[in-house]
């Protein structure tokens, strides 16, 4: 009995995100019948669905970090897109050794990637310090790197686009050897799995929720609210770094102006779509992941329907409005009241018999 109720709750929390995803996919199937068709071309998988899953990878990775930040601090990190560019710039600059375009690596790949991710973790730590220690509103605190981040990336690459025309670097955005599945998909899955393991095997998840719901009470039961908030921003930075490396590997370059552009808004939307309250508190990581795939599916769908890139935001906005209304407390209360009324009506009707 108890297990059933538990199952009911989890299924309910993921209910809406899944419905949204299915709705988007349904539109696709109607519009493009071969949407789910997967074929092998040149030894790699291709088809709309693969494109969606592949292209969504960076967004998924960002959404994971954004979920934790949202839950713990009740605010969002809007600098993740710019931080992606910083990580990409650091990584490519080390690989190229300062040249504009190279065909051989100037430094070991692993070192460059770690350096890139470290740089993004540092950005996260900076955000975390502002939010957790100085108590600055997340939106304002992360606005600093949102504006400055791309400039920093430009400084690192000395204002040029650094190209790394080396196959081993292209792996992260492309394919590993003869594997037909794009690498970003694996990276996204690995990120999700590791995060889930950390949340399930340590008390971090509980701490984050607790701090996000009531910081002062959490401190009085012995939690270090400041440290926990700080940690989530560092994690969010690391995620942005990973996403930045993947994005840069796709185009084998560090394009400070375009890597991760506007992706922060999609990441926030993914968190909201996943049924998470943007005001913090309880969170649902898988919801955000589903939300991220939904957004990418939507984007790909609109492209497939020949919507121009600059009109895309309009359609996205419509979807956002619908979702936000569905999740608003007023609407939920309305539904609950309707339900209660129905129940009491049937109850009184039965009583009358």
């Amino acid at each position, binding site marked *: 009995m108890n297990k059933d109720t538990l199952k009911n709750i989890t299924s309910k929390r993921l209910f809406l995100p899944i419905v949204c995803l299915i709705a988007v996919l349904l539109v696709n199937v109607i519009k493009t019948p071969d949407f789910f068709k997967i074929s092998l071309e040149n030894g790699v998988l291709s088809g709309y669905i693969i494109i969606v899953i592949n292209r969504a990878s960076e967004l998924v990775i960002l959404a994971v970090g954004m979920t934790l930040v949202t839950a713990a601090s009740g605010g969002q990190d809007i600098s993740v897109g710019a931080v992606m560019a910083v990580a990409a710039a650091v990584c490519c600059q080390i690989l190229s050794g300062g040249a504009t375009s190279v065909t051989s690596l100037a430094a070991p790949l692993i070192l460059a990637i770690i350096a890139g991710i470290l740089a993004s973790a540092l950005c996260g730590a900076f955000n975390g310090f502002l939010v957790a220690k100085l108590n600055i509103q997340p939106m304002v605190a992360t606005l600093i790197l949102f504006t400055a981040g791309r400039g920093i990336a430009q400084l690192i690459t000395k204002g040029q686009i650094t190209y790394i025309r080396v196959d081993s670097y292209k792996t992260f955005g492309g394919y590993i050897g003869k594997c037909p599945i794009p690498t970003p998909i694996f990276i996204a899955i690995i990120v999700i799995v590791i995060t889930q393991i950390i949340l399930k095997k340590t008390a971090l998840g509980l701490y984050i929720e607790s701090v996000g719901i009531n910081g002062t009470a959490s401190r009085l039961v*012995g939690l270090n609210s400041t440290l926990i908030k700080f940690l989530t921003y560092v994690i969010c930075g690391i995620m942005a770094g990973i996403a930045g490396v993947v994005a840069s590997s796709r185009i084998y370059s560090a394009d400070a102006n375009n890597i991760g552009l506007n992706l922060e808004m999609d990441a926030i939307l993914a968190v909201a779509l996943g049924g998470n309250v943007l005001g913090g508190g309880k969170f649902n990581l898988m919801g955000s992941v589903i939300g991220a795939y939904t957004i990418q599916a939507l984007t790909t769908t609109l492209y497939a329907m020949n919507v121009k890139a600059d009109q895309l935001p309009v359609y996205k906005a419509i979807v956002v409005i619908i979702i936000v209304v569905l999740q608003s407390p007023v609407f939920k209360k309305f539904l609950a*009241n309707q339900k209660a009324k129905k129940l009491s009506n049937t109850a009184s009707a039965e009583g009358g018999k």
Partner: protein
Amino acid sequence: MENNVVLDMKDVSKTFPGVKALQHVDFKLRKGEIHALMGENGAGKSTLIKVLTGVHDFESGTITMAGTNIVNKSPQDAQSHGISTVYQEVNLCPNLTVAENLFIGREPRKFGFIDWRTMNKKSAELLKNLDIDANATDKLEECSLAKQQMIAIARAVDMKCQVLILDEPTSSLDDEEVEKLFVLMRRLKSEGVGIIFVTHFLEQVYEVCDRITVLRNGTLVGEYEVADLPRVKLVSKMMGKDFDDLADIKGDHKKLEKFVPVIEAKGVGRKGSIKPFDFVANKGEVVGLTGLLGSGRSELVRAIYGADKPDSGKILVNGQEAKINAPIDAMKLGMAYLPEDRKKDGIIADLSVRENIILALQAKKGMFHLMSHKEMEEAADKYIEMLQIKTASRETPIKSLSGGNQQKVIIGRWLLTNPEYLILDEPTRGIDIGTKTEIQKLVLNLADQGMAVTFISSEVEEMLRTCSRMGVMRDGKKVGELTGDELTQEGIMKAIAGGDGNE
């Protein structure tokens, strides 16, 4: 039908998911009476008020005012029907002046602009009329809480209300302030306003009320004239059982023979909140801290617990000097602290009962030693059963429990950490009388098992029943201690008021 009835609620029912909050409740308010709405926590008092004021809608029943049926969809709606509410927490704007607060949303205007002169003049008249000692141009935050409460009432009165709802208005006021509030209530009564008075304090009911309506578990128990319902009967009606164990619970409590100090504070103080004090908590002893609100009772224990880090003195735990920088350090030394403000500092509202219970122990264990699901469930079940916490399941969010049950969850949270020293700051505030006695008994039991307990309460009676020694606080300073024969109501009052040689 009586013709002086201003408000008549009939057969009102309201269901929340899984809970029948109100079942066929009737409530009648007459002109110029003060009507107490009584019941234990979770009896449905708040729900009834909220249904009446349009915060919640209801499924069946009727509300009649002056012969016409009304349905309030929002508090504004209720206001326009002449129903005003003053809540326990004053919901005015502290940064505005008294006059602005009185007239907010209905400012007198001249050529479309706010007519400040008229507004301030009218406010001054209103305040004078109601004998409220405040200036119209003072900032609201400069007024005491009691005055703020009265200003809220003045606002309601000026809006020509026929029904005034006072929801626990006295719980943060001291005796003198309560007395002033009562004077105001009696005045309004004589002017024909019907007042609904929700409170936990029995004495106050008998002091000002004319009638009592008792609710229990969402159903109506009955409506009584105050004169016909002695206190003991009222309590038994609220609890649904005969009430005999309030009298003496200290009876089989062991008398302490040897004193083994667990906590010794020497010269501990914090600038701006509490002057340096000495304090000892012994094994198996319940020590009380008494004093007026804001006299430094909470500040003293918070300094020991590390909630507000002291800047002088030292703390010895079991004879060893301890470094306490944050609550977690105190917890590791075996301390536990139930904070005064349950909502703000105690519960994690959206988390389940289970998570709320295990949280402190989990924090003590550290992030990398997550308790298994089974351990958590066993711990939660143990305390739900032991403290008889009324909850639908252990996975229910704590916010949907009644206040008393939330408090029990927090007590369970700390008992689970198996503390040597337990600090309870107002553990019984806003809790029904049955649960109060349960908590008092529990405290004595824990002391018998060897725990050192510090107990803070505004109710002197309650302290007398539980404590064997009492520290007296005045103006952020510990001014003395009372033991043995000095522990009488009178003795405590004297010590709090100061004046003779308690220092």
